[in-house]
Each structure stands twice: as structure tokens, then as C-alpha cells.
């Protein structure tokens, strides 16, 4: 019997992603797989019970609901977890003030008060704190009155504080970080927020799309002032627009200080105004990436001359005091007021900020943009090499609806290609998707997401820290390197054995609820041995099947 299963599994996998079978996008997925497919593509992975829920509601209704996230009540647990992550809700200017680049106090040495830790804890408690097992430390911390813990945090040296991070509540963590490294808080909040939303949000498709569009309009928080600008960028420019009009999303990204800083447009000055200041002049970075990565695509039919003309249109789109978290500003004095010709369209001389807006209009309406965006969505949601016919239909919807992204998504989600054998498990999860889906599958609770973010970074996907404007690749092959595969296996085992601080796995039997394919694969690999439950769970989470979606 087991051999039979193995044979069918091999048969079905052999027909899967890499085979050149041209008809695989024509063959409809069996009804039993549609629910699983919807969960694996449109969410960050199924939680225990999700399959039953989608079955009960019906796939079609479930998809409609996900396309209209405002109708889905948000998970109150998520809201409670996000609330303390203050920089997600602040203006950049406030964040700069509250979490300055350098600690205000003499934090390097620690010991902000004259109180010695020995006056707060018994010698035995101090020993536990210094050398105890993690569980003993946790018990000790939990036993302290809140006000003692607060004073202890202040009294401890820097390193002593840092090791408490995984043991205390979010509010005490902030106290520690504020003393030790306030500038790390924006990054800390962003990475935690992203993981918590992906794990806990009920509006899963909207979260998947927020990830997609942030990545499309990538910025990097390690670039100077962007540390304090990225949270507001994601919140104000990206998240509201993921199911709206492409033109709105494009415009919001273009005007946002995080993007203006990241791609240097804030420093771009009309050549005629740059005289006498040799360090300033026209900067083409934003113009180039706007055409190549945000809209037309590298084969979108533009020239180097177009890049220069677009850059001239955007001169004057700048930032008030970027290092202080200042906002967008149009500076008339450095704007190039001459005539420009962009992709054959003349933008007359004498214009101001509207020159840039005109460029965005031209680009958002361009057929190459409709194709480029449609194809990129299809690569994320259907397959690495999506059928051209599907891309064409999505592009047609894009054009006919004036770039309505919800309509484009609907065209894709109603297509036979999306629900085909060709799409089934055809994608490899990114490290972020793998880690989050493993947490969701295990029914794990996340109290502190930063250690998990570090694990994801180790797998090659540091969150909000992709240096290049390309964002992270959606192509499976880019995630198939040795370091990453070893890392995935290790992360799977660490999660299953509850060794990631801040994440606590439920007592759950993933083997029993795994797919037939995964069970067969684990059985075959275990060669008759019966590993313990945690090890089995680790094998399921680290299995090749689990790396796919």
C-alpha cells in the first residue's frame, strides 16, 4: 500500500512545475485541491482549521471576501499585538525625536541609576539571571513585581539588558531598546509588524498584496534617513492602495519621502540651477527605476533620452529636512522648467510639480505597464512562467478599467489558469513565506517576532533591507541555493522543537494533518523509523512539499 502511494506521488510530482507540458495550464485542478490551492496562494499558509472553514464557506465566496478585505473583521489579537509597536503609528518626525540615532543617556556603560542590581535581587536570583537556563530566567522575570523589573532594567549593564529581550513583555522590551539602541526600534517594529500581520491577519490576501506591492516599490531602511521613513511609507503609500487604482499607488510611492530619499530624487536639481555647485545636478536614479521597475519594465520601449526627460520632470520633488523626518515638498527653484518630451508626449515649458504628475499619468496608462504589472502579478500568484494568454487578459482588464487592481486580481482569480494543474504547487516559498507558513501551520503563538525575523534574514531575506530597488525575486530558482536550503531545514527543526525565542508552537501533530504526499515522503525518508513528534513535525515543515505553495 505504501509503495503504491509513493508511486502516485512521484507520478503527480513529475507532471508538476518544471515539466515542459504545454497543456498543464489547461487542465483543471480537481475540486478537492482547489481549497488547498486557494489557501496556499492567497494566504501566508493554512492554519489548523482553515481548510474546514473555506470548505464550509465555499471557495468562490471566500475569494470574493478576500478581495474585499474591509468586510472581514480583523483579528483582535493582532490589533493588540500591533498596538505597542509605536513607530508603526507615528509620523517620521516624531519617531526621529523619540528614538534618536544615538542614545540620550550614558547607555554604553549601562547602569542608568545609582541602584545596583544586587539591591533589587537576591544573590540566588542574580545567579539565575546570569547563568540560569532560559526557563528559569523566564520564571524569575515573571515572578518580579513590574516596578522591580523596571528598575532592574535600568540598573543592569547593557549586555545584561539585551539578554532579557526575549524574556519580557513588549513594553519592557521597548524600555530596554530605548536605553540600549533607540535607533533600532523602527526596524524592530517594522519587522515585527510584518510577521505579526502575516501570521495573524484575517485579511490574508490584502497582506500578501501588501508584501507584493512593497516589494514592487522597494525601499531599504538601511539607507540613511529611510530608517525613520519606511514605516510611514508602507502605512500611507502602500497599504491603502493594494486593491485600488495603480495610478494612485504609483503617485503615493512617487511623492513619499522614503522613495524620494531611497532613489535620490530629493537631491535632483535642474542642470541650469546646479551651476556653481558641482555636487548637485540632475539625478536619474528615480527616473530610471520608475520606468524599468515600477511601470514599463526593462523591455518597455523607452530610451536613455526618456530617462533624462523624466528625471527633468521630477526635479523639485524633494523632502523638507529628511534627517528630521520632514515631509514631501515641491521646490520650484530647482525645478527644470524647460520643455520635455517623454515617450513621444510633449510636456510644455513653464510647468511645475504637475510635470511629474503628467509623467505618472503617461506611464500608468501605457500598454507596456499593463503587461508588466499583469505579468508580475501572475508570476507571484500563478507560476514562474505564466501563460501569455492569461497575462494578456489581465492586461486587458488593467487597461479597460483604468488600472483597477482589484479588477485585475479578479480576472486572474477567475481564470482557468489560476485553478489549473500548471499552477498547483508550482511556486517555491520565499524565506519569509516559508517561516510564516510554518508558524501558521503549527498553530504557534508569536509573542516576540524579532528573533524569527533574524532567522528569515539568515535565509537571505532580511525584511525591509533589500538593498536593490528590484525588491526580492519572485522566481523560484532564485531561492534554491545551498545556504538557503540548509537554513530552511534548520529553521523547520528549530520551530518544531520550540527553539525560536518568542515563538511557541502548539502541541500539534503536523504529520497526521499533512498531505498524503508529504506523509508518504516522510515515511519513505524515515525508512521505517518512528521519530518523535517534534522531529516528525520538523520533517514535515522542512519537507520539499512544504517549501512550495
Amino acid at each position, binding site marked *: 500500500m505504501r509503495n503504491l502511494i509513493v508511486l502516485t506521488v512521484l507520478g503527480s510530482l513529475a507532471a508538476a512545475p518544471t515539466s515542459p507540458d504545454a497543456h498543464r495550464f489547461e487542465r483543471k485542478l480537481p475540486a478537492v485541491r482547489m481549497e488547498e490551492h486557494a489557501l496556499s496562494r492567497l494566504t501566508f499558509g493554512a492554519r489548523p482549521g482553515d481548510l474546514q472553514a473555506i470548505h464550509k464557506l465555499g471557495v468562490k465566496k471566500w475569494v470574493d471576501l478576500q478581495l474585499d478585505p474591509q468586510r472581514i473583521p480583523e483579528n483582535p489579537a493582532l490589533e493588540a499585538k500591533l498596538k505597542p509597536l509605536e513607530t508603526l503609528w507615528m509620523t517620521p518626525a516624531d519617531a526621529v525625536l523619540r528614538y534618536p540615532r544615538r542614545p540620550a543617556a550614558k547607555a554604553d556603560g549601562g547602569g542608568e541609576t545609582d541602584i545596583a542590581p544586587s539591591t533589587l535581587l537576591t544573590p540566588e536570583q542574580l545567579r539565575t539571571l546570569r547563568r540560569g537556563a532560559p526557563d528559569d530566567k523566564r520564571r524569575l522575570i515573571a515572578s518580579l513585581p513590574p516596578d522591580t523589573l523596571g528598575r532592574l532594567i535600568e540598573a543592569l549593564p547593557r549586555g545584561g539588558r539585551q539578554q532579557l529581550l526575549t524574556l519580557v513583555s513588549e513594553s519592557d522590551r521597548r524600555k530596554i531598546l530605548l536605553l540600549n539602541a533607540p535607533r533600532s526600534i523602527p526596524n524592530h517594529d517594522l519587522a515585527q509588524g510584518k510577521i505579526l500581520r502575516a501570521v495573524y491577519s484575517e485579511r490574508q490576501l490584502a497582506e500578501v498584496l501588501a508584501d507584493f506591492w512593497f516589494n514592487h516599490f522597494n525601499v531599504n531602511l538601511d539607507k540613511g534617513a529611510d530608517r525613520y521613513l519606511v514605516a510611514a511609507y508602507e502605512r500611507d503609500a502602500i497599504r491603502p492602495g493594494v486593491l485600488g487604482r495603480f495610478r494612485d499607488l504609483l503617485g503615493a510611492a512617487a511623492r513619499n519621502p522614503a522613495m524620494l530619499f531611497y532613489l535620490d530624487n530629493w537631491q535632483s536639481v535642474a542642470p541650469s540651477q546646479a551651476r556653481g555647485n558641482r555636487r548637485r545636478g540632475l539625478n536619474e536614479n528615480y527616473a530610471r527605476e520608475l520606468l524599468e521597475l515600477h511601470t514599463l519594465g*526593462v523591455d518597455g520601449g523607452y530610451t536613455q533620452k526618456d530617462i533624462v526627460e523624466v528625471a527633468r520632470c521630477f526635479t523639485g520633488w524633494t523632502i523638507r529636512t529628511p534627517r528630521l523626518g520632514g515631509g514631501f515638498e515641491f521646490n520650484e527653484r530647482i525645478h527644470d522648467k524647460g520643455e520635455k518630451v517623454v515617450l513621444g508626449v510633449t510636456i510644455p515649458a513653464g510647468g511645475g510639480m504637475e510635470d511629474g504628475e503628467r509623467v505618472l499619468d503617461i506611464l500608468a496608462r501605457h500598454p507596456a505597464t499593463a503587461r508588466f504589472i499583469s505579468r508580475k502579478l501572475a508570476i507571484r500568484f500563478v507560476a514562474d512562467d505564466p501563460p501569455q494568454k492569461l497575462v494578456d487578459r489581465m492586461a486587458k482588464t488593467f487597461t479597460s478599467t483604468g488600472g483597477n487592481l482589484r479588477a485585475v486580481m479578479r480576472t486572474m482569480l477567475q481564470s482557468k489558469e489560476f485553478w489549473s494543474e500548471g499552477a498547483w504547487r508550482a511556486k517555491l516559498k520565499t524565506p519569509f513565506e516559508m517561516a510564516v507558513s510554518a508558524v501558521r501551520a503549527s498553530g504557534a503563538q508569536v509573542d516576540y517576532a524579532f528573533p524569527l525575523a533574524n532567522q528569515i*534574514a539568515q535565509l537571505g531575506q532580511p525584511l525591509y533591507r533589500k538593498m536593490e530597488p528590484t525588491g526580492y525575486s519572485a522566481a523560484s530558482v532564485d531561492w534554491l*541555493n*545551498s545556504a538557503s536550503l*540548509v537554513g530552511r531545514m534548520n529553521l523547520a527543526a528549530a520551530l518544531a522543537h520550540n527553539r525560536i525565542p518568542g515563538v511557541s508552537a502548539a502541541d500539534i501533530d503536523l504529520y497526521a494533518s499533512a498531505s498524503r504526499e508529504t506523509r508518504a515522503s516522510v515515511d519513505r525518508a524515515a525508512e521505517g523509523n518512528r521519530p518523535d513528534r517534534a522531529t516528525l513535525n520538523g520533517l514535515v515543515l522542512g519537507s520539499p512539499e512544504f517549501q512550495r505553495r
Partner: protein
Amino acid sequence: MFSRRLLLKSSALAMFAEGAAPGWLARAAGLSDGQPSRRRKVLVAIFQRGAVDGLNMVVPYGEADYYALRPGIAIPRPAGDGESAIDLDGFFGLHPSLAPLKPIFADRRLAIVHAAGSPDPTRSHFDAQDYMESGTPGRKSTADGWLNRALPDSKASPVQAVNIGANLARSLRGPHNAIAMSSLADFQVRDVRSASSFEAMYGADPLMAAPARETFEALRVIEAVRRSPYAPANQAVYPSSRFGQSMEQIARLIKADCGLEVAFTELGGWDTHVNEVGAKPSAGQLANLLADFGQALAAFHSDMGDRMSDVAVVTMSEFGRTARENGNRGTDHGHGNAMFVMGGQVRGGKVYGEWPGLTPAKLYEGRDLAVTTDFRDVLGELTVRHLGASSPDRVFPDHRQRFCNLIA
């Protein structure tokens, strides 16, 4: 073919014993079609992140303007007292903390290219590192790194390209398989009981079987390297710093003959805006960093011994620093810089590159050392003349290669 044999041999090794020499293993595995194995050329690339002050690292002590521009932080002319430049050629001298490199220079195995750098004017660490690592200054959308493109297409060994560091550096990203590890100890499936189960599962997966096979081969090779005890040769002592340890790990991999062709590692902290130089030239931030840097390179050189004939080491940093000191005993972001090239086939003992001078009119944008040698010329020459690529065009597209004739 090589890797399949290696798999068999290394499985055999695993069954044999802890002490078996991985050198034997790889050499035996390298006997393809009855031909004797050829020792591979290895290129080691080192990135000094943060922009090292090239003018205090390789001091133009023969230039009066250097002392005029840096009244407080210049390294004095050679005086043999450990607090002054170590003379190289009557014009340039090494920072006193780089004393361990002097014998290698005298031995003509260390060359320096001064006033090297990128044609791109950026003074952003972020952009300049990106451009130097992608190998395409001014072009941000290049997906892969120069060192990955420099790898030969033939997939020779599962550990052909190794990055000692937590993440795969931009330089090594790309279509060729490259491994990143903080250390040899870090690269293993930690749950030992699950390792063989994972291998069996991945082996049966059509999409992942091939990369997984490479991965498990690499794991076995690294395990074999890890298991064989290692002591540096010739009394070489690596610094206990992260960089020193990284260089030792690279030396281990090279000597294990496991097929390594390119290695990358990095060290940071060079962004010396404040208190670059301490109370005396041999003290302060830059001196400490250079001491670590020089000791690690010298330890590597003596540890490698004869094997240096197959090895070239090249160092780079995203840009240089201002010719003039600032108001905080430091320097700000500049332009031209110095690169080291060390190896058995290197025509060393010479400071290469056209020296543009430091008179105000010669400074780039009135403030920095100008660039007279494109960093791609140095790296391109190593790609062609050391690694044996037929042309540097694939590695540095849209660049016209000029050879410095650094390699014999």
C-alpha cells in the same frame, strides 16, 4: 561528473573515520577520465565596508600636500620608529599597523594599486558598495554580483564559491551556486537525525533534487573539512577577530582541496569620521582596524606557504576618504582609494596606478583623491589572468578592460 564522484567518495569518507584527510578525498575525486587532478586557482575577495582611508593606509609621504591637508592626522614620513610610515618605494609607505605586510611586499608577492576606484561619483556607502559588488557602476538593477559572474560555467565542486559571513554578499549572488556560512561549524543540518531523511525527501523532488544534491554534497565536503584537525602552517597566527577567523576558514578550505575557486569575506568599521587617528599614529580606530587587517592577511600568506602560487587575494572598499582632515580628527566620504593584490603569481613589490597628486587642482571635485584606475580593471585582470576567463566582458559588461599587468 566530479561532484557525483565526490559524493561517493565523501560518503565513503563518512563511513571511514574522523581523521581521514579531505585532501586525499578531493584529489582522488578530481581524477576525471584518468587525467591527473589540476590544482585550482583561487581568488579571495575582501571588502572593507565603510570606506577605508586609503591615504593613511598607503601613505603618499613623498607628497608635501598630504601633510598640508592633514596637519593633525597625517602619518609621519618613515623614521623606523613604529609611529611613522613604513617605506615601500621612496614615495609611498604603509601605515605602521600594516608592518606585517612589509615582508610580503619586499618579497614581491604583494602589489598595491593606488588611486583606484569607481568612475561613479556617489559618496553614498549604500550605492557605492552596490555598484562595486554588482560590478556595474551607475546601474542599480544588475541582479547578480561580479564574483558570481567570474565563476567558470563548469560546475566543478559543490563548494566552488564560498562566502564566510552570515549572508551571501551581493558580489557572490547570481546564477552560480554559492554558499554562505558564518563559519564551517555553522554549515550543517543541526538536527542530525533528520539530515538523512531530508536528503531522501529532497532527492525525490523534481524541482529541488538538483540543488538539494549540491547542498548535501557541500554539507558532506564541509563536514569532512571540519572533521580533519587543522593547524596553520609556518607558525602562522591568525588574529582572534572575526576577520582573522574568516581568513583562517578560507585557508582551511583551500588546503582541503575541495574545489574552492572563489571566496569572499568582509570587515567593517572603516567609516572614520571622528577620531580616526588616536594620540599617536599606531593608536586609534584606523590603527586598530589596520592591525587586524594586516595581521590576518599576513597570517593567511604564511599559512598558505607554497599554495600561494595558486591564490590571489584582492581587497577593495567602496570609496576613499577626503584628502583633507575634518574638524573631528577624522575624514569624510571621498573618492579614490588603494587596493591590495597578494599572491604567488602577483608581480608585487610595486605601487601601481598613475598617481594624480594632491595639489588642490588635481583633487576630484576639489576635495578627494582622483581615480586613475577603474576598480574593474584590477578585478577584470584577476578574472582573466588568474582565474583564466577568456574575457572580462561577461563579468564587467560595458567596460573597456585596461590591464595593469599585475599578474605575471
